[in-house]
């Protein structure tokens, strides 16, 4: 009886240790092949343009962050500041990768999911530490936000947490869409000025999808004019193209006032009837990052303002039907 118990115990221990060993080694598939992470990473470098948001959402504080843009303290924007806490990561240059600087930091892991690495850059980084590039089978510069979050979470064995966070957002979208019936059926556009030309995003862009998930409709003409791309630009004369129920400008009010010819601007219906929302730099940044943390920020900050605009338009006689029956 005793020997049998010992036998069972030994077998169980052997199985457990084997399972434990297998679990402690993680294999990640990415665009340039496979990376094996054999021990829990402590010193993580965030080399993707917006990877720090995903890491901070998962509770991982990177030792260095690539400072994409925006002059934010430690390259962490307001929606992720509380996750960063009092940590002071080193800032990495936005354009040129300084391999020596990264090597000097002695990292255990380099996350470069949204870095758009070239094969040579990946090879050089792999010599310094295990490197995770963008997910396989996805264009490196337009990774869907949920795919990116799951991909990064795999490196830390936190896939369950990532899945939970993604589901929370999906549910939140549904709830907002259900509550704000005034959004249903309204047309919307996410517009910008680029190279002194106005432009708007097609329905396939994440910013447009954000709006359509809330119940808005992106005009089909946008996709026609974009012809496969995710945006298109047009001459100022054709501002009628964006005469929709809600125009979200990715700029400040003063920037747009300065960009559009004043006399013309005064005549445009969406301006006259106050159907514009100006994101400014911070909300604009939240759109650019589009991470689990920034999406919450968008939903909490953008929705009330947009709702106010739609309801005010309804109050005037401009929009024909405000509430879907």
């Amino acid at each position: 009886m005793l020997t049998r118990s010992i036998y069972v115990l030994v077998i169980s221990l052997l199985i457990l240790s084997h399972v434990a060993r297998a679990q402690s080694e993680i294999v990640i598939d990415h665009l340039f092949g496979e990376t094996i992470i054999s021990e829990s990473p402590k010193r993580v470098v965030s080399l993707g343009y917006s990877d720090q948001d995903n890491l901070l959402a998962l509770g991982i504080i990177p030792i260095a962050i690539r400072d994409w843009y925006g002059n934010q303290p430690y390259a962490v924007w307001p929606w992720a500041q509380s996750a960063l806490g009092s940590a002071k990561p080193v800032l990495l240059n936005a354009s040129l990768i300084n391999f020596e600087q990264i090597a000097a930091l002695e990292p255990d892991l380099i996350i470069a999911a949204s870095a758009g690495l070239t094969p040579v850059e990946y090879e050089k980084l792999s010599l310094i530490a295990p490197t995770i590039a963008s997910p396989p089978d996805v264009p490196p510069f337009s990774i869907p936000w949920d795919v990116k979050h799951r991909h990064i979470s795999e490196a830390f064995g936190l896939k369950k947490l990532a899945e939970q966070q993604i589901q929370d957002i999906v549910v939140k979208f549904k709830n907002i869409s259900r509550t704000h019936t005034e959004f249903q059926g309204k047309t919307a556009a996410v517009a910008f000025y680029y190279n002194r030309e106005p432009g708007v995003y097609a329905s396939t862009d994440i910013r447009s999808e954000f709006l359509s998930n809330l119940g808005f409709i992106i005009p089909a003409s946008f996709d026609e004019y974009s012809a496969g791309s995710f945006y298109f630009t047009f001459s100022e004369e054709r501002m009628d193209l964006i005469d929709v129920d809600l125009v979200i400008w990715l700029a400040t009010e003063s920037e747009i006032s300065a960009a559009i010819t004043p006399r013309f601007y005064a005549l445009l219906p969406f301006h006259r009837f106050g159907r514009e929302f100006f994101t400014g730099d911070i909300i604009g940044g939240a759109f650019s990052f589009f991470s689990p943390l920034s999406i919450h920020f968008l939903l909490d900050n953008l929705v009330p303002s947009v709702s106010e605009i739609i309801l005010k338009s309804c109050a005037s006689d401009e929009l024909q039907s405000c509430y879907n029956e």
Partner: protein
Amino acid sequence: MIEASVAKHWHYTVVIMLITILAIIASLSLGSFPVSASAIFNYWFDGGNGVDSATMTVLSEFRVPRTFAAMFSGMLFGVSGLMLQTLTRNPLADPSLIGISQGAALAVVLLSVAAPNVVADFRAEAALVGALAVTVVIMSLSGKDTAMRFLLIGIGLTAFVSAITASLLAYGHIYAAESALTWLAGSLHTTTHEDVFILGSAFLIIAIATAINWRSIVPIQLGKDVAIGLGLSTGFQSVYLLSCAVMSAAIATAIVGPFGFVGLIAPHIARRFSPPSSVNQLFITMLSGGALVVIADSFGRLIFAPTQIAAGLNIALIGAPTFAYLLLKKSN
């Protein structure tokens, strides 16, 4: 009298050799990652005994390729500039004047916009083809003789090519354009051992090819009639030297990106410090070109470390004052 001047020239040669060696040592020793002098010594002479693996990686994968790619590409640009200035009898000739940089840039940008998935693998080949294609067009348009016509057509065509490139960057898909722009600024920081091997071999071949034919340089510099009078087949010689000039600059551009200025300045440094049309002048041109790019690269990554300034910009920053200094010295 003659002995004194020859001796003086040998002094200059030694000094420039020393400067070049010091530049290489500095480039290997300095950077964002701390590397000791003993580590470098061990790396070269002891196979890396007693050097920890992180330092070995930094030295062998980052510092050494970068330094020697800079050195060899600088030498190639310098030689190219010297031959062009000799052939066109114009001291302001530079590889970028005959479309090499622009042709390479156009090819890379075109590939980035048209086939963004494969651009990373074929960038160097595209740059080489583009550089040669534009040069061939310029050569065929300008006919066989006049150097002035060659330069003028070069200036016109390069402007045209640059305009096409700018349009592609403006209207192409934004991410493709961005990756092309990074290459245009110079890509010394991502050079590999393979790149160094290609550059080194190219340099060796060009150096030998140029040196063995050097005796024909003097007559060409004196003008076509004198050259014919001395019994030289100028057509063949010109084409030969021009091909060497074009190939050396095209290969260097393909690997490290378009660098202006090196081909312009290095020959002038050599002219100041060596007898004209001597092999010595060729030698000093090579060393000056190499040292210039190595110093510019080191400067770019140290001055605002850890922020790196692209090498192409630095060469202009360092080269312009150097050029001015040379011109001022000459007029005294």
